[in-house]
């Protein structure tokens, strides 16, 4: 089309164009709503996460305590004070051992000792989740744990 060609007359009703423009305005509104939605969530997210973490820790601790009493207390003592197995409610132990290390010890057991492997993957009875719950329970003891330098020995039977 040559540069100086006259503009062709509109071939569609003006009403059609108008309704198109109304739609475009709505599109803009929705786009802003989308951005606002993400921003609103981002603002709330840290609080939501903290709350979720708190309630997760609480429920893990509760379930972990039950699991501990059922499966671990026999050797490690009802209050994790130690038995034929090491003392777990000990500042020295809890400080020196990360969650991941504890998970590994419970999951795979300790060869050469009476500690069996608990995770289903190693022929035990617990899921990863349950192991994590026990670890959360033990970790919860840390703030009030007494100092037990000889925690490895536990308490001699009898």
């Amino acid at each position, binding site marked *: *089309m040559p*540069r100086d060609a006259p503009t*062709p007359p509109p*071939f*569609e009703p003006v009403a*059609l164009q108008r*309704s*198109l423009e109304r*739609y*475009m305005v*709505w*599109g803009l509104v*929705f*786009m802003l*709503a*989308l951005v606002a*939605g*993400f921003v*609103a*969530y*981002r603002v*709330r*997210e840290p609080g*939501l*996460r903290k709350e*979720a*973490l708190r309630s*997760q820790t609480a*429920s893990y601790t509760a379930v972990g305590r039950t699991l501990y009493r059922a499966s671990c207390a026999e050797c490690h003592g009802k209050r994790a004070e130690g038995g034929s197995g090491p003392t777990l409610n000990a500042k020295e132990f809890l400080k020196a051992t990360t969650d991941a290390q504890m998970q590994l010890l419970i999951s795979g057991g300790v060869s050469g000792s009476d500690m069996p492997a608990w*995770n*289903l*993957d190693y022929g035990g009875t617990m*899921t*990863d*989740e349950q192991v*994590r719950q026990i670890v959360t329970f033990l970790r919860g003891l840390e703030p009030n744990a007494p100092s037990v330098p000889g925690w490895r020995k536990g308490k001699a039977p009898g």
Partner: protein
Amino acid sequence: MSDQDVLESNEGVGVDEPGLSGRLHRSQVWRSMFRHPQQDTPRGRALQGFSNFFLHVYPVKIPRRVLRNRYSWRLGFISGVLFLILLITGLYLMFVYTPSVGAAYGDMQRLKTGVGFGQLIRNVHRWSAHLMVLVVFLHMVRVFYAGAYKHPREFNWVFGIMLLLLTLAFSFTGYLLPWDQLAYWAVTVGTNLVKYVPLIGNPTQNLLIGGDQIGQSTLLRFYALHVAVLPAALVMILGIHIWRVRKDGFAVRRSNVGAFEEDAVAQPAAAAPAHAAPELYGGRVRLLGVVDRESITAEARPVDDTVFTWPHLVVRHVVVALGTAAVVLALGVAFSAPLRGLANPNVTPEPAKAPWYFAGLQELLSRFDPLVAGILIPAAAVMAFVFLPYLDRNPATEARNRKVAVTLFSILLSLAVVLTVVGTFFRGPGWQWIPPWDHWYVEL
């Protein structure tokens, strides 16, 4: 100048535009991407449609009534948008989720506590999934009342039923993945239905859940179905479904009597009388390959009630898509997807309910013999829907001319809705009648 020449020469690309945008539109890079002319003329718009990959899903022109929201309520389109949202959010979740009994539940909690936007994406995924079941169903209802399943669209209705079933399968397999009590027991109740099939019931259930109890193999199976098998099947069938809609011209005639006759297709489009243009439209598109190019250009078309798809329908669709996304995002920000305690086969929650879209079935089960309620009635309903366009030979599309079909369908629809509402809202422990205002036992 032929249309091909116009496309190749980029005639009129930004020639009149001053300034930076004009220079951009005239640049070689731009013109290599958008090869159609920018003329705002009927021919220009038609060529824009022809030369654009994405616009090929649309016909170049559509009857003007398709632009009205009341025409279809855009339900089919919204279903597609929800599927796209589910695909994107689902990919995000796949990066976090492990389909293992030991890890799945922990991953759900990690979404809450440690993954950026994790819980939001999960919320959006969940609400979109529920909405998609609802919207696909409403789409089917709308298509029925519009008589849009009639010739030549019979088989596309069948594809639609397949898509509805696939959507349910999607939602049901996804239901198990969080591996919480809600997931475990809803799927237990749901898969127990299969047992009632005579002879093959137990083996089928074993095949479905990979054993006689829901466990690791069920989770892995449902995961594989949910993220690989079902998406592939749905994309495939959805592709055919949409392609057929497009080939059928996006609209049903208001009076279907004598519509879509093959003689209309057989005539050369250019020879068509002016008043027949809208009906001829579908035929003309099909003729693209055999009619010579000049006879199908837009300016040869007489004045009719059609409008250009680009921009009118495309812009509306984009806006509806944005609106749908905004709604599910708002739902995701406002309401969190539920996560109950870790799945525990030894503790049955009260009440143990199937997902809401199967609650009607569960309600039926509480009233009839399991074989009748769990198998015969649903199988008969699905078969009736599949064969509907072949059983209903009445060509009329207006409700007043098809009273029997509309009445029957409306009765069945009301029954299904009542059963679902009762099962979802009015049932408590032991499947006792407990109204939602006394105690809220609804889990989504």
